[in-house]
């Protein structure tokens, strides 16, 4: 069930360079949320910004009725969010979209996050571990100070490996390099990924070559987040959204995704 909940800001802090964690009291959404789903936050009753902002759910705690979001300041909406104080109320629509799936047979899992693509994987890792499964988390960032502190990563993974493009932290190079090495070593039955499009395309290619199923969480510019504007489409080879799908070559990320089987996506389209 999707609800537009009147969220209260419970905590709000900087966790890495330009990256913030915000916790919202939203009991209904917290109870319903599934890894890979997102919320649409309303930052203003007025016209600036006009649209809501989609953010992935980075953790949900039904016990306290809270969700956590992690975001990076990249423009007007994220800047506006970063100025919101504790106890402020804002409308939060969710949980939205289709999340990750983990068949009983698909373990241990490997989670590959790039940049601010990490949040949905953290939620996924926590739920996998809570269900008793092992999960390895590979995370890449441009530079060390963009990496989340391990306190944010550890609960989500039995093992964490980090990379940076500039070599200031962990493996020097792309996170796809880490993945390659891991896949050479271990026969993972499933790969989960979220990050920049180019990174996910590389992960998807690697998995296809190796014959490993791969789920990716996509981001596209969204107006509605609920499937009514057709603004957030990605090119697909085929649609899994059922025979009634109107969306032919283009599938809506917000309702058919944001998590897709990587082979569905037309990465060159």
């Amino acid at each position, binding site marked *: 069930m*999707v609800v537009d909940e009147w969220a209260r800001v419970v905590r709000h802090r900087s966790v890495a360079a330009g990256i913030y964690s915000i916790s919202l009291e939203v009991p209904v959404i917290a109870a319903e949320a599934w890894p890979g789903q997102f919320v649409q936050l309303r930052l203003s009753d007025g*016209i*600036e*910004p006009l649209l*809501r902002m989609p953010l992935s759910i980075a953790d949900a705690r039904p016990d306290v009725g809270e969700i956590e979001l992690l975001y990076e300041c990249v423009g007007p909406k994220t800047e506006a969010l970063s100025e919101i104080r504790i106890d402020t109320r804002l409308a939060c629509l969710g949980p939205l979209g289709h999340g990750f799936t983990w068949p009983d047979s698909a373990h241990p899992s490997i989670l590959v996050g790039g940049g601010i693509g990490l949040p949905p994987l953290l939620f996924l890792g926590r739920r996998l571990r809570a269900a008793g499964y092992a999960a390895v988390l590979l995370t890449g960032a441009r530079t060390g100070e963009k990496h989340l502190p391990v306190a944010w990563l550890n609960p989500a993974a039995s093992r964490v490996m980090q990379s940076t493009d500039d070599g200031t932290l962990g493996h020097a190079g792309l996170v796809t390099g880490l993945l390659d090495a891991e896949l050479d070593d271990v026969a993972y039955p499933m790969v989960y990924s979220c990050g920049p499009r180019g990174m996910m395309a590389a992960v998807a290619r690697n998995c296809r070559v190796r014959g490993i199923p791969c789920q990716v969480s996509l981001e596209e510019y969204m107006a*509605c987040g609920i499937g009514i*504007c*057709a603004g957030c489409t990605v090119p697909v080879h085929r649609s899994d959204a059922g025979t009634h799908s*109107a969306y032919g070559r*283009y599938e809506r990320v917000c309702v058919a995704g944001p998590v897709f089987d990587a082979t569905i996506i037309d990465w060159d389209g």
Partner: protein
Amino acid sequence: MADLSVNLAGCRLANPVLLASGTCNYGEELAELTDLSGLGGVITKTITPSPRAGNPAPRIVETPAGLLNAIGLQNPGIDAFIAHRWPFLQKLNTRIVVNIAADTVEEFARMAVRLDRLQGIAALEINISCPNLKQGGMAFGVDPASAAAVVRAVKQATELPVIVKLTPNVTDITQVATAVEAAGADAVSLINTLVGMAVDVNLRRPVLGNITGGLSGPAIKPVALAMVWKVHRAVRLPVLGIGGIRTGRDALEFIIAGATAVQVGTATFTDPNAGIAIVRELHQYCVDQGISRLSDLTGSLAT
């Protein structure tokens, strides 16, 4: 209790607030989030004779108080619409207007013939104003004679009331409005989006995959209001006002300027409940101002 009902070309709406085409898809997604039966009606996303894939991404971007879109009329086509969308729509307890577009006059007429056979459509809305197509689309809407030809053909093909959706991207919208009135249209709706563009200054590329798009949202409200006022004075047809309506007061501006009903578009993206909230605000205004019938306000602008 104020009476919010309106008579739109012989068709009674419980209230004057409809959801605009392309901003509520075919009703299914919103039905879970808002009470569609509390609205005056729902207008389907444009359907075309054949399925359309739409334009490449990015398709949308926010601009100051506005939204640029270049969806490109992605839709399943009339066959899939009738087979898979209509059964759901038909069961909704609100008026359903089906919005159609085509590349030729004949195709418009053929679609009208097929829709005429469905039970329960309240009206057809003729989209001759989409700015995001390479051909067809707006081409009909900017030329009074072509617009009239479409209307005549559709009117011959159906008994349903025909609403013609006009484009603002013209020198004189009243010329198109009077031409479609003469051709037999039952109502006009305006405005569709204004042609617009955004540039990514880092990449030095258009933001939208389609280069240009259509501008909607509060930014265009003053333009829409001026056109509604002019068209209301130029024709005797009922006018449906569209453009940047977000609140009851916005809707009232249109009604006072001459709109019989209004359509809510972009606002639903930010608040799925926007239409219902507007109905409530209209009612409150009537109570506060001691107005017993909202429809008395249409065109009440004192100039």
